C-alpha cells in the first residue's frame, strides 16, 4: 500500500466519518465501545479500500462495510461496561430548537431503536439515512418486498415500545 493511497483513504474517511460515528452510536452504549467499533470499521474499510474502484460514491460503499462490520464481524470488546452514558454525549439537544415534548418523544424513540435487534437497527439506520428500499435490500441481501414488510413490522414494534 503506497503513501498516496493511505492519504487518499484517510482524507475520504475523515470527510465521511459521520456515517461511521452514526453506526457506532446505534450499536454501542458508551464511548469506549464506540471507539472500539469505529476502529474495527476503519480497519475493515482500509483492508477493502484497494477493491474500491470509485464506480460508486465512497460514502455509499462505506455504508455496506460499516454495517457488515457492526452486524457480523465486530466482537464486543472486553472493556465494555454495561452502562449507558451516551444520551448526554452524542445526542445533545440544540438549544435553539428546544421543545420539551418533542425532545422527550425523540429521546424515547432513540432508546426504543436501541432496544431493537442488530438487523432491525441496520434497517432503521439505512431508513434514517434516507436510503430507498432497493438500497436497503441490497445492503442486507434480502428482497425489496421483504425489506418493506420488515420495515413496517419495525414501525409497529417501535410503536409498541413507545406506547406499551
Amino acid at each position, binding site marked *: 500500500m503506497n503513501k498516496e493511497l493511505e492519504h487518499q*483513504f*484517510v*482524507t475520504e474517511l*475523515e470527510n465521511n*466519518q*459521520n456515517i461511521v*460515528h*452514526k453506526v457506532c*452510536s446505534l450499536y454501542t452504549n458508551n464511548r469506549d465501545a*464506540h471507539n472500539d467499533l*469505529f*476502529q*474495527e470499521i*476503519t*480497519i*475493515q474499510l*482500509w*483492508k*477493502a479500500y484497494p*477493491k474500491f474502484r470509485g464506480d460508486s460514491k465512497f460514502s455509499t*460503499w462505506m455504508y*455496506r*462495510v460499516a*454495517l*457488515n*462490520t457492526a452486524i*457480523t*464481524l*465486530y*466482537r464486543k*470488546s472486553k472493556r465494555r461496561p454495561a452502562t449507558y452514558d451516551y444520551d448526554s454525549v*452524542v*445526542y*445533545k439537544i*440544540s438549544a435553539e*430548537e428546544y421543545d420539551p415534548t*418533542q425532545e422527550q*418523544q*425523540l429521546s424515547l*424513540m432513540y432508546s426504543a*431503536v436501541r432496544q431493537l*435487534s*442488530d*438487523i432491525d437497527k441496520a434497517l*432503521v439506520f439505512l*431508513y*434514517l*439515512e*434516507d436510503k430507498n428500499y432497493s438500497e436497503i435490500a*441490497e*445492503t*442486507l*441481501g*434480502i*428482497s425489496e418486498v*421483504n425489506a418493506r414488510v*420488515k420495515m413496517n413490522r419495525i*414501525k409497529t414494534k*417501535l410503536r409498541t415500545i*413507545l406506547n406499551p
Partner: protein
Amino acid sequence: MLDELDLLKKDWQKKETNLPRLTYEEIYKMIWKKSSSVVRWIFYISIIEFLLPHLLYLIPSFRNEMDYNFAKSLGIDNWIIALTIVQYAVAIYFIFQFYKRYREISVLDDAKKLMNKIFRTRKTVKHYVLFCLAMVLLIFGVFIVGMALDDNLVETLNLNNQNVAPDQLKWLLIGVMTVAGILFTGLLAGIYFLLYGLLTRKLSRNYIELKRMEA
C-alpha cells in the same frame, strides 16, 4: 398520526453537528491497528483446530499410548499406518478447502452473503473436526480390537509378574482403553463445540433473523 420514524429521521439528519470528530492523525493511526473481527478469530482458532490432533503427539504420555512398537506387537501396525496416511490426506484436503473459502469472505458482500460465507468456512473446519474425532475413535477401536485378538497381550506388555490373572488383566486393559477413548473424544468434542458456539453466537443469531425474513 405522524409517523414516529419520520419525526426521528428529521432529527437524525440534524444530529451531524453533535457527533464526535476524529482528526486525520487519529484515523491514520487506526489503519495500522490489528483487526479483532470474528473472521480473524475464526482463522486463528481454525488453525489451532487443524494442528491440535498433530500437536497431541508432542505430549509424551499420548505418544506412548499410541506407541508404534505397541501397535507392531499387536500386529495392527499396517492399519495404523494406513489410517495415518488417510488422516494426512484428508487434513490437506480440508486445509485447502478452508483456505479457499476463507479467501472468499469479503466485507463488500451483502450482509447475508457475508454471513453465509463465514459459516461455510467454519463448516469446513467443523467437518474436519468431526472427521478427526471419528479417526481418534477409530484408532482407539483398532487398538482395542488388536488387544482383544492378541492371546498374549499381558506378555506383550511385560506385565505378567502381577498378582492378577492374565485374562482378567487383559480385559481390564481393554476396559481402560475403551473408557480412555470415549473420554478423550468427548473432551475434544466438548472443547470444540464450546469454542464454536462462543465464536458464532452473535453471528448465528443475526443470520437466523435475516433468513427468517426471507422465509
